[in-house]
Structures are given as C-alpha cells and as structure tokens.
C-alpha cells in the first residue's frame, strides 16, 4: 500500500477550500509565467511566499504522487509540478511516481528474464517473437512502428510527436515482461544488437533528419519545460542513482525500478538508446559542443547514461543469470514462451 496520496485526490481536497483554490490558482499563474521566462527576483519571492502559504494549509499537496501510464497521468503531473514552483536541483531528482507497486512484479521481471539462455540464440528475435504472438504486444508494437515509420504527407519526415505517443503507449500498456523484454534482451551478436538498437525506431524517435545532435543541457532544458518529460527524467535520476554502498550499485537497490525508469524516458524529448550494435552501452542523442563554462555539467548529464554503474548493472542483469545478485525478493518461474502456450 502506497503511503502517498494521489495528486488528483489532493487537488480535489484543495478544491473544497476556497482559500486553497485561490492560492493554487495563483501558483498556476506563477508556473505559467516561469515557463515563458525566468521570474524576476521580486516575483519569484512572492510566488514562493504563496507556495509556502498553500503548503502550510494543504501539506498533502507536497507529499502527493502520480501513477505512471495512468489515464490522467499528465493532469496529475501538472498539479505535482505546479506545487513545486521553481524546483531546486534536488527536487528535480525526486520521482513524482509511486514505485511501491512495483517491487514484487519488477523483481520477478528482472529475475524471470534473466533465466533466458544465452546459447547464441538471438534473444532479441526471441523477445520479438514472444511479443508478436501475444496479441496486445503485437498490435501495440505495430501501432508504434507504423506511427514512427510513416512519412508526413509531402515530406520525408516522420511525425515525432505521434511516434513518441505511440512508443509510450506500448511501454505503458503492454505487460513489462514483453515490453522490457524487447528493450533489454541480451545480445551476443551484432545482428541481435542492431535489432535491439532499432527497436525504438531511432530514425524518428530521436534522430533528426540532418543527424545534428543538440547540446545535452539544451535538450534537458526543453525536457524540463514539459511536465511529462521532466517527471520521467526525475524518475530516472531517482531510480537509477548509483551508489557504491549497495550490491546492485543502485541507491534504491532495485534493478527493476531503474529499468522501468530508463524505459520511461523512451518516447520523450530525452529518449536514450543503445549507441551501437556491439555493446549494451546506452546514451542520450546529444553532445556537449557549445556548453561553454557548463561543459562539465553537460558531461555529467551524459555520463548519467554512459557511465552509470546502476544502469549498466540493471541492463546486464536482464540476461546473465550467473551475475544475478541476491535480489530482495525470490524470483518465480521464468516467463512461459507463448510459442508453447496453448491457444
């Protein structure tokens, strides 16, 4: 049971108190102004005062969280971030999502899939076959591939917005043993690696026509102006935070949470992907050229994907049974392949 209220619920409570409604309304205006251009010092402190007054009356608005992939997710996230006006760096690393429901199913996912045998068989082809035969996975996969490969009429471009939406729908609606199975299948050949790399249709989901990479900080600043993207980024920073003090290398000590948070970024402005077909290394599609004095901050953002022990361990666990650490919960039997399932 989650110890958090849902932000929609917290907002409904606030709606019963006219004073809270007025304060919240004021905060929304502050958030709207801040989205256009940085608030002046005076305006910022007035907004922060208003924020303090609101949270004093309705602390549940500060403690509330949201459910990923839920129908009203974006509405919930708007409330979550409106209340955190002008968030500091650390608030941008706290996840807006509940993660409690996850542990049991996630652990089983990581464990189950890690019983895949690595006998040279193309595991990503196998994961694709399993998906193709599980009706919901097959149809939602066709949906995102169609959205991401279709050209906009009269142009050579794809509709990236539709592609992102379809990718998110696939990752949120399809059971994770299938969706994360096609994302994190282990590879021992370049053919398998190329299939894994192209699974999220890079030519549309993040690459641009001329192949020009944005600056990573620039990309992050665009992401942080979109409630969904900054939530998924915060979720990733939170759940894939490395730590030298835990066996998994993850501060939250759960490979499953990190994988899900990483997958949550797919279909946003900061869509990460494998960098080649012969390694499991992943990165953002950006570089640090033109970072000026913030070159090191840019490097650090890049390295959260390229040199993150927690993320690397979590990805590699998806396929190598021997390096499976003592996960918190014991793994159930492996996922039955639909090929043997009775119709």
């Amino acid at each position, binding site marked *: 049971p989650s110890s958090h209220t849902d932000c929609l619920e917290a907002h409904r409570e606030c709606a019963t108190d006219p004073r809270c409604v007025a304060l919240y309304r004021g905060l929304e205006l502050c958030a709207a102004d801040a989205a256009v251009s940085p608030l002046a010092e005076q305006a910022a402190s007035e907004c922060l005062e208003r924020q*303090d007054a609101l949270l004093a009356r309705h602390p549940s608005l500060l403690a509330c969280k949201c459910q990923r992939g839920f129908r009203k997710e974006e509405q919930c996230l708007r409330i979550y971030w409106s209340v955190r006006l*002008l968030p*500091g760096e650390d608030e941008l690393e706290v996840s807006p999502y509940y993660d409690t429901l996850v542990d049991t199913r996630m652990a089983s996912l990581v464990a189950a899939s890690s019983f895949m045998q690595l006998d040279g068989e193309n595991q990503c082809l196998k994961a694709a076959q399993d998906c193709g035969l599980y009706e919901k996975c097959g149809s939602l996969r066709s949906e995102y591939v169609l959205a991401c490969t279709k050209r906009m009429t009269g142009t050579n471009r794809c509709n990236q917005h539709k592609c992102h939406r379809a990718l998110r729908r696939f990752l949120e609606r399809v059971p994770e043993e299938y969706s994360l199975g096609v994302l994190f299948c282990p590879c021992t050949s370049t053919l398998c690696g190329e299939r894994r790399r192209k699974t999220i249709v890079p030519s549309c989901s993040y690459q641009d026509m001329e192949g020009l990479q944005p600056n990573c900080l*620039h990309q992050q600043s665009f992401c942080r102006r979109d409630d969904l993207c900054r939530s998924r980024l915060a979720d990733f920073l939170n759940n894939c935070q490395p730590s030298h*003090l*835990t066996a998994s290398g993850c501060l*939250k000590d759960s490979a499953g949470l990190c994988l899900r948070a990483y997958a949550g970024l797919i279909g946003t402005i900061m869509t990460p992907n494998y960098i080649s077909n012969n390694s499991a290394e992943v990165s953002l599609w950006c570089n640090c050229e033109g970072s000026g*004095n*913030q*070159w090191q901050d840019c490097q650090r953002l890049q390295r959260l994907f390229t040199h993150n022990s927690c993320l690397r361990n979590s990805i590699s666990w998806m396929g190598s049974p021997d390096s499976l650490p003592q996960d918190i919960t014991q793994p159930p039997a492996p996922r039955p392949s639909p090929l043997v399932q009775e119709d």
Partner: protein
Amino acid sequence: LYFPQNEYTETVYVGQPVGTPILQVHAMLDSDSERPHFYLCWLSSLRRPPYSSWFQLDIYTGVLSLNKTLEESDFALLYHTSRYVKKLILHAMVLPELTHRSKCANRNAPRIMLDFVNTTLPQCAQTDMKELCFPHRDTSNPHVRENRFPGALRQLRRLTRLNVCPNYTISYHVESDTPAPFAVNDNTTELVVTAPLDREESECYRLVLVCTVRQETIITREDIPLDVFVNDEDDNAPYVNGTDTADIVISFNRTKGGSFGSLFVFDRDLTPIYPIDQSHNKYVGTLLNSDPWIKETFDIKDTFSEKKASHGGIRETVHDYQLVLKRNLYVTENRTLYLDYLVNDTTYPGLEGTVMLHFNVTILPVPIRFANITHIFTLTRRASVYAQVGRVCVDHCLQIDGFGVTYRLEVPDKNVSADLLSCYAAISITQSSEGVWGLLYVNDSEALRRSDCQDLQYVVVAQEEHTQLEASTQIHVVLDGEASKAAQGGQQLQSCAEKRWRGDCESARGLGATTGRCQWRQGTQKAISEDYSTCSPDLRTCPDSVCDAVESKDMTICPQDCTKEPVIGGHERGLSGSGIKACHGTCYCFSEKCFCEIDPVEEVLCD
C-alpha cells in the same frame, strides 16, 4: 564571490558525535575587498527537511559540522526506500555581508549531498588509506574563473576521519605534468590557486593530489587525479585569420535561400549554445549598405561552431558568415555591388570588439537560348497516345535554379492546309516536374497513322516565367513504319500494367506504349526485389521510380511509378512515398490498385 565547486559529497554515520567536522565549503573572490560569510540555506522556508537542524556551517571558515550526535532513531525517521543509506541534501550560500535570511539567494546554490549510513564510523583498522586521505567519490571538479584572485578552493583533508587514526600524520602536496599555479597550504591542508588563470592558455589543469601517511617508520602514499576547470570570460576580441573579403559571382543558381561565399571570424572565447539567452560572447552583425534593393535582396547568415585551437587544443569559436538570397533574382538582373558587414562582439569589454567583412557581388544575366543543334526524334506510327518521344531543354538547364522555363510547340508555317495542320496535333509538349525539361509525347495517335501526315517539323519555344524572355529551336519528328489505312477508331486502350503474363503483355496495345505494344520485363528474384516482373509501356521510363510529367497525366500509364494507392503483397514504396520501388514476384495493377504476387493466380472463382 562565487563557489568554485557546486556539489560536495561525504558519508556520515550513526554515532558520530555533535561537533564532528564533515567537510569544508570554499568561495573565491571576485574583488579583493570581499569577505565570504557562509550559511546553510533552504529553497523554501516551509519545505525544510527534518534533518535541517542536525548540521551547522561556520560563517567564516565554511566548515560543516554536526549540530547533534547522530542516532539510530534519526536514521529511522527518514522516509527512503533504500534500507542501507539515506540521502541528505543541504544547500550552502555565501554573502559578502552578515545576514539572518535562511532562504537561498539563488536557485543553483551549491548542494551538499550526505550519504547517511546505518552503521558506525569504520575504525582505524577497518579504514584503508585511500578512505583516510580522500572522500570516496568526489564527483564535482572545481571551476575557477579566469582573471581572478588567488585563493583556497578545496579542503584536501578528510575531516570526518581527522581522529580515526590519531598516531598517523597525514600531509598533502600537489603534482602535475605541466606547470600549474596550484599549491597546498601546509597549515590548513587547503588546495590553493596561486595566480590568476587564463582559460585561453589552459582550460583544464590535470592535477594529482598526493596524500602521504606517516605511521612511525612506515610511509604510505595515496594519490587521486583532480581536474580543475577554468571558466571562460569574454576577454578576447574577434579576429579574421586570412581574408575579410569574398568575391561572389551569381549566375544560373539564383534561387531564394541560396547561400554564397564564406568568411570566417575567430574568437578565442567560448560561445555557449546553452543557456539559450546566449549572454556570453554575444555577436551582432550589421549590414552597413543603405541601398533598399540590397536590403530586400540579401541577408548575411552567421553560424558559429566550437573548434579546438591548433595550439593546446583549447576550445574556441569560429563564426562562418555567408551571403544569402532573400528572393529569387530575375534572369535579366545584371549588377555589381559591394556589401560591408560589421561584426560586433557585444559582450567584449575592450574597444576593438568589432571586425568588418566585405562581400563583392557580381550578378550575371542568364541568357535564355537553345544550344545550336537540330533535335531529331524518330517515332513509330504505331505509338499509342502518351508515348514519350523525347525531351528538350535550354542551354545550362541542369544548373538553373531560382527561375522556371515553360515550353510550347509551334507550327513553323502558319498557312498550311487544315488537314496538314491536324497532323501537327500528333505531338504535344509538357513541363517536367522540376521545371527544367520539355517532354515531347504523342497527343493524337490517329494523326500518326494517317498517310498524309509525313515527317513533322516543329518549333519549340522556351519562355522564362518572369521576364517572358523567349528562345526557340527546330525539332524534327521522323515517322517510322507503315501508315495504316483503317483508322483505329476510339479503340479503348488498356493500361499495360494490367497484364500479368508475358504473352498477354506483348500482344497488348497499351496506353503510352512507344512501340505501340506493351513491353514485358522478367524479374529473376524470388524475394522482394527492384528487378520485379511487370508489363510496361516503355521499359526506358517505366518503372524507373520517377512519376514523370507525362506519366502523371494518367495514372494508368505507369502505375508502377505513380500509384499512391496501397499496394497488396510484399513491396517497397518509391522514395517520395508513391510508386513501387521493389516488388515480390510480378507487379500488376487494376487502375491504381497494384498487386505484387508470385505467379499471379488464374481466375479463381467464388466457392
């Protein structure tokens, strides 16, 4: 005043007593008179974490220490999914004067991240030398502003381990391969920068921090690398390396958006793409010519990029200035002009922050003429309507961009008889899609077959769309083969593409068939391939993945190139999304609906 480091990390343990020093934050001076005053601060007064009162920051030294002894209960108090370690986040600010405010002065106040671990501090025996000497993973590298005052930028001693091994003596010094203005203050064990830095000289100093531990007779040496970055300031003026003048000739290519010439301006400072407002090293350019024609016609495009300087590999900025056409130029435009463009580095404090660039532009008129050759085309009288005869275009037509040329056919001798005049209806001309060629095709196949219609001489007139300038040339269409007595009547021509078998195909009279008969292409591949079997009016132009101007007059001429309808069977669409580039087996079409099928089925009936 500024913080050279925006993130500090350390680990704290249950049982550490009140007063224990944890780490020391440092600020560097922007002016000699400043005196730093350090405070812990909070982003919002209400959202203070429960552990805010456990720590205190010394106003003058910046040393962070425990305000209480850390207990097991403190650990349990904190909500966090991980059961081993809780992450505490504090913020520090530095002001030149004393203050009582607790709200952070600005949003990106440096962060102090403490891993609070649910065990006691490791004793001397359990602490390896590296742990004793240095924090576990100090991710944040110092950034020192160039042209500033010397000063301490980091405490090297690991304060939390001060008394863990009392009978050890620990000292530090700094080494580096290249000369670096850094030293260690032996009394305070602080790393100090000893002279103002110049980023254009070195933007990163790769130091090695060496920790020497003496325990009676045993001396142990531990070292870790430390990169100190130098932050840039706009302290360099723009300069031109090479020419500041571009000589440009505009002739055939005179299209809107076309760019010409390239002049490079260098700046040893950095130009950040991010943050977006680009307040650092901001360049503004001004076209000094007042002539309105120039302002309406030309623009200067500035694209900057970062490059590594040849000496030292230091990052610097290169601006590439190009002349851009804001509109198409008429073919008759014929002038020479001199453009002066003032480049100004607005954020450079010095006087010489500007550079002047010169674009000498010569615009040549483009003659509309045909090459001096006679065009002879041979055509069989059996050709079907829409059969392609050939194509013509004005001189240099492949280089033309920015203006269009239309073509029309004229009868050379206007007072021929009405009958003879009707012969000339046999051939027509149309514009190719990219507006360069004139495509000749059969417009009236009946006229071709009439015996009284002998060889046809036409005049092709090319006209430029804006200026109406014209040019003309003679073409000669030689009619080959027997004139047939019986008129074909309005015999309904089918699309060649409907034929699925070689026999049907080669015996059919199809639309656009140059020889009068459709032509069969036999594919060889079993899989989806570009070399698919199909029936075509003319294998030279169909299928060729281009739905040309004649084929697009009627989709059934060459649906293989032109269809926009869904294709049934394994296939690959053409580049523009229409037509069939590759097909599985045989491609055949009913009007625009095409199939790709291995051995297309005979008539199979409803059961």
